């Protein structure tokens, strides 16, 4: 059980699955020989061969299109989109084909595809290397959407995604690749090895899709978060000394509604935090659901702390990013009503 970074944990998940299941293949831009621009597939082509791990032409739509065909054949393709910001050319194949296939064919064909893409900001990547686009996909019936927050979950969830017979969009917060990030860019960065969730088994295990985790139990307010924002929320709770219950959703669709509802019923207050732009973001759905299920328990309006409704600006990264200060303010607002 060595300490693994999130990159290593993802690499291990793919390695394990390539080893266990001869139908698993992975491809994408720079994924093969080079091992991916974030090194997630490093060493895998050498180990498993270039029929299983290969480079793709720069055509995200072509990758999804061929992946649907591979899935229909019986393979379990994993597609790496180099940045979530570049997933748009693939939306038609993802939405019109992969997500609808089982339904429209009466269950005859399906698309057991996993689409991996680094998401989120925090690396000065500007507006085309920082986006969080999950809400486009959570709106699409037939897709599952997953965003892990730590190495252990990343590996276990990715294995579940690969084994899943439905198409899964798997977003990886790139700011967490090499260490947990609490939203303080000015502080020295911490590697995963010092974090308990970097204890990752070498072999096969799963973290089931559709189950949230309580990242921090508490009574004062419920914070619904995922990906990087889990760490930011933890920092916010600590720094503001608020006894928040922080829920790491892990899977956005299907959502673990029970964990969410139980917590909000207990605290009576709710903050939703995500990096994506606010309007029609996934937080809107969470707010709608929470008020539907917990209306009579809510003591104050649900607060959304999110990225602004602007592109991710290069130089104002940290003014854009919903850091611990803003999350703490949100908690206070939710508590004070």
């Amino acid at each position, binding site marked *: 059980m060595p300490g693994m970074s999130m990159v290593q944990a993802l690499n291990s998940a793919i390695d394990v699955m390539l080893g266990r299941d001869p139908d698993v293949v992975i491809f994408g831009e720079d994924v093969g020989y080079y091992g991916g621009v974030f090194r997630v597939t490093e060493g895998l082509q050498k180990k498993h061969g270039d029929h299983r791990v290969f480079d793709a*032409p720069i055509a995200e739509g072509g990758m999804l*299109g*061929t992946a*649907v*065909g591979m899935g*229909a054949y019986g393979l379990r393709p994993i597609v790496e989109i180099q940045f979530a910001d570049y997933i748009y050319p693939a939306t*038609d194949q993802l939405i*019109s084909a992969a997500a609808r296939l089982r339904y429209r064919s009466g269950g005859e*064909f399906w698309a057991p595809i996993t689409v991996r893409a680094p998401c989120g900001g925090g690396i000065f990547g500007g507006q085309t290397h920082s986006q969080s686009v999950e809400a486009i996909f959570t709106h699409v019936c037939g897709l599952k959407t997953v965003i892990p927050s730590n190495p252990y979950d990343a590996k276990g969830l990715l294995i579940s995604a690969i084994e899943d017979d439905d198409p899964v969009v798997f977003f990886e917060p790139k700011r967490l690749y090499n260490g947990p990030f609490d939203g303080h860019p000015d502080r020295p960065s911490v590697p995963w090895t010092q974090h308990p969730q970097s204890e990752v088994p070498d072999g096969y295990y799963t973290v089931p899709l559709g189950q949230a985790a309580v990242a921090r139990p508490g009574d004062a307010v419920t914070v619904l978060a995922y990906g990087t924002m889990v760490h930011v929320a933890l920092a916010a709770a600590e720094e503001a000394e608020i006894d928040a219950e922080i829920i790491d959703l892990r899977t956005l669709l299907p959502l673990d509604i029970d964990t969410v509802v139980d917590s909000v019923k207990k605290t009576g207050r709710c903050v939703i935090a995500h990096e994506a732009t606010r309007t029609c973001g996934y937080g809107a759905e969470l707010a709608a659901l929470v008020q539907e299920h917990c209306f009579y328990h809510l003591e104050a309006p649900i607060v959304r702390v999110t990225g602004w409704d602007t592109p991710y600006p290069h130089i104002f990264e940290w003014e854009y990013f919903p850091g611990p200060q803003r999350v703490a303010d949100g908690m206070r607002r939710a508590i004070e009503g």
Partner: protein
Amino acid sequence: MPRFAAGAVERPDIAVPAQQTHPLAYQLIRVLDDEGAAVGAWDPKLSPETLRRGLRAMMLTRAYDDRMFRQQRQGKISFYMKCTGEEAIGVGQAFALAPDDMLFATYRQQGLLIARDWPILDMMCECYSNSHDRLKGRQLPVLYSARAASFFSLAGNLGIQYPQAVGWAMASAIKGDHRIAASWIGEGSTAEPDFHHALTFASVYRAPVILNVVNNQWAISSHQEIAGGEAATFAARAIGFGLASLRVDGNDFLAVYGATQWAAERARANHGATLIEMFTYRAAPHSTSDDPTRYRPENEGRNWPYGDPIERLSRHLIRLGEWSPERHKQLEAELVDYVREVGREAESYGTMQTGPHFSVRTMFEDVFKEMPWHLRRQRQELGV
């Protein structure tokens, strides 16, 4: 007037480098001449028995289309699309492929299914969205799916099947499988990105796939020039990707068969993909929602120089002494009866308007393999 004579195009070896096929992108492979004789190197030399089976499948396709088109007019189905004039493509290509080669078609290759002896009863039930519709009433009429016939689920979205066929073929190659894939796209839809993706990936991965462009001159009201068909042939699109290219008289059963056989052998022997332009004419309206008199010259269809595929094959068989006008008439009548009879059975399982349909409960199934909580609750909300 035919611009290209039958038998004039040479037939390269299936192992030829793709580049050597590129001149063929500007010619037209034809086998049946104006007299109904089969001439030239592309004649697949089929037995009279096979030819008669091909003829029958084309005629059944047409009879099926005719009835279903009328069923829409009678309000029994919501929508229909015929392939009149294009029957040689679906039927001829299915005949030339192995039965387990995987087909990624458009809505205009119902002939593929019929040639594979897929029951028209099943197809009709899909069109009626009735209680025997295996697609559970979910799809528009004509958007069939038939895994048991190696026929991939049809999409309403133009073009998206094209790279899927390439992906299937890549998978077949990865697995060392002998099966190949074939796909079809309308000439209008070649403008979609999926066309580009399919050609790129087929070239880069040398996928065992046949990519067909059915150039029936029209895309609803848009002439093929709006897809760039005047500046170059659609077969020529292969050149820039180093893929083999053939251009074929799509109304000539023997040419269709011969070219497909060539491309299939080439793919199966691992020499790569072939792009085939099937040059044909959409004799029917685009669909039941369409009125072609609003946009195309009245006599265009009648003056179409490459004739009707059924008449042409029939004439060939007659010339061979293997068929007669009388037998043709008789078969035509038999098939009309047959389709009517099957149609009655299909209707007995329900029509769109009268039902019975699948249970409404099934509306919430198959979105995912297992139904998540939110769909269960929505089903409860609907009270079913």
